[in-house]
């Protein structure tokens, strides 16, 4: 008897599923088509992590959210997409199932081979990648790359950090010793040393982009060594910022604004302003203008910006930072100029040489400047 009851409930359940399946199969494919039919430009944005990570992905998602408000645009988003064949399938799904004509695959590892492969397969779709080194003649015309010179902001971070540090020891928590990261570490250190040349920057590499436990350990270990200001270059600075606040030291943000996480210790932060390249590329796609394959910009072009100063930043420091900021906004400031030695004593930029931000040599940086305690 009881077993009959069980069977009956199973049958009911099966029926329910059958009905659902039928509804799925017969249901109108309307919503699929509607996206494309409305003659809206469908823009697809793909994130490697969660959209609300207070970091790399959130910075991109903020721009995507602003895009949604533009007329004639509809945005489809997918988060936590690994840099495997998964991202190829996600790009293809956005194109085939959602009708996307412009894609923003935002993680560095999406570029080669995934995005290049899809770009070949879908030559009429525009692929705009964040940070990839797009090369004329080598990469397809329907692919391109946008990126910002955020080391300018890290230099300003450095000025703020150098101004408040009492121990003259500041810290940097980084994921991997790759050129983009080294450039930030060096800019941060140079900024701090412009305030006081005796300042040293203590560096810890965690080994990967999102390792919250190691990031917390690294922050704690830096504090224990006497470091009193930290910043970082990992996908989500959340853990570093929160740990620094808990330990009562100062912190400079990265990627997005993290001031809410550290109301006391947040000095300022290096933020992306991706809306600038997003708007540019989306408008071009809407108006059918040629695709800009390689776009870069710093503070002047509005690709990056600073978080508002926190309470802890003294007036004198604000003035100094603002003065440098103003020069950078004019485009006349060079962060990397000779004579510059690395932390083994070797001259890496001879006296008399000053690199503009657009200088390709800077995108191949493989050294740490004098004053950084750590090794590549």
């Amino acid at each position, binding site marked *: 008897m009881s*077993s*009959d009851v*069980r*069977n009956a409930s*199973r049958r009911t*359940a*099966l029926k*329910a*599923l059958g009905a*659902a*399946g039928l*509804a*799925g*199969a017969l*249901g109108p*494919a309307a*919503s*699929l088509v509607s996206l494309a039919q409305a003659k809206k430009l469908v823009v*697809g944005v793909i994130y490697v992590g*969660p*959209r609300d990570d207070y970091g790399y992905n959130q910075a991109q998602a903020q721009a995507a959210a602003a895009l949604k408000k533009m007329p004639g645009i509809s945005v*489809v*988003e*997918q*988060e*936590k*997409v*690994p*840099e*495997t*064949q*998964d991202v190829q*399938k*996600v790009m*293809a*799904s*956005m194109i*085939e*199932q*959602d009708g996307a004509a412009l894609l923003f695959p935002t993680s*560095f*590892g999406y570029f*080669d*081979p995934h995005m290049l492969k899809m770009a070949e397969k879908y030559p009429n779709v525009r692929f705009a990648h964040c*940070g990839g*080194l797009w090369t004329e003649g080598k990469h397809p015309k329907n692919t391109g790359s946008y990126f910002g010179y955020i080391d300018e902001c890290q230099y300003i971070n450095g000025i703020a950090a150098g101004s408040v540090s009492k121990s003259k020891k500041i810290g940097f928590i980084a994921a*991997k*010793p*790759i*050129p*983009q990261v080294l450039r930030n570490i060096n800019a941060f250190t140079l900024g701090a040393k412009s305030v006081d040349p005796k300042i040293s920057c203590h560096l810890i590499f965690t*080994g*990967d982009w999102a390792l919250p436990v190691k990031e917390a350990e690294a922050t704690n270990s830096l504090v224990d060594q006497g470091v009193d200001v930290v910043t970082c270059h990992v996908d989500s600075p959340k853990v570093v910022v929160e740990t620094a606040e808990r330990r009562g030291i100062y912190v400079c943000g990265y990627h997005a604004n993290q001031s809410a996480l550290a109301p006391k210790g947040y000095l300022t932060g290096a933020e992306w302003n991706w809306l600038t390249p997003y708007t540019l590329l989306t408008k071009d796609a809407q108006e059918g203008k040629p695709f800009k394959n390689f776009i870069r910009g710093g503070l002047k072009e509005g690709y990056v910006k600073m978080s508002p100063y926190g309470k802890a930043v003294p007036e004198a420091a604000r003035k100094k930072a603002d003065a440098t900021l103003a020069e950078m906004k004019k485009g006349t400031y060079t962060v990397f100029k000779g004579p510059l030695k690395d932390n083994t004593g070797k001259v890496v930029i001879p006296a008399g040489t000053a690199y503009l931000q657009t200088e390709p040599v800077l*995108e*191949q940086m493989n050294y740490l400047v004098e004053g950084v305690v750590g090794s590549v």
Partner: protein
Amino acid sequence: MPPARGGGLLGPSAEALLIPLGALAGAMVLFGVFMALIGQNPLEVYRLIWRGAFASGFAWQNTLSRAAPLILTALCVALPAQAGLMVIASEGALVLGGLAAAILGHSMGGMNPLVVKLAMALGGMAIGGLWVALVGALRQYRGVNETISSLLFIYIAVALFNHMVEGPLRDPASLNKPSTHPIGEANMLGALPGFDVHWGLAFGIVFCVIVYVLVKHTTWGFALRVVGGNPRAAQLAGLPVSRLVVTACFLGGAASGLAGMVEVGAVHGTANASLIAGYGYTGILVAFIARQNPIAIIPVSVLLGGIAASGGMLQRRLDLPDATVLVLQGMAFLTILAAETLFGRLKAFRSNE
């Protein structure tokens, strides 16, 4: 005589199929309730899951691509399990197998691509196999718990992999994403003919069938299962227990190593941190849901691939977070595992003998 003594109309094979399917249906209903609670229309959600995972050729390719690596990594768990071992080293064997394949593919560049591919496959399988065989050997000869050691072996493998990729084997041209030297376009595996899914799917299915035959229809397999049932008795019966265990571990590791080779040969063209994508860990889940049955691994992998594929659809259309499909996955696995207790207890499936 038709149903006598309360016997059912359906046989045991129907039981093996219908109970998990019923459980899945239950999970879908639960998930529908959950969706309704957060304000989504369950029917729309079902429709999108269907569209995202199975409704078209494109959706099937999406699903099967995601299933392919899981089939191989699940075998790495299911094979040692036949001998009673709980080995979870898939991820480590995968990354080292991939690394071996990348080294071979690059260093043999210029030779006949077929030879190179074969060498990559064999190299990846050998390294992956040895890695997991080591876990088996540690347990048989040193009494080290294989679950713990295999977990630790993953950390060692990943650290070793990262060190090689970012250090001695790094291609200096790979600036912001440290990788080994590319194996070259000629040595890539490509997709299955007429189907946008890479060769890993075919390798996985063939591997499953071979393992099934080996385990269920050979004396070696019988001996292995005896070891799994009662190692003491197997020893008393004169079976070479340690050799059987280590061999099973080797074969399992070879499956994962092959998965790594496919990742390098069909997807990335080089070895880099993208290989550490968690396929090994998901493989553990697959093997357990498949109750360590090599054939059942295939549909379970497809199910998981389908859930992952439809997850994208839910995110893009309904603006739901990525965690939504994890809820569905969790519900599906809980109901499937809970439904296991129903085996042999439903009248309909009882045989008459």
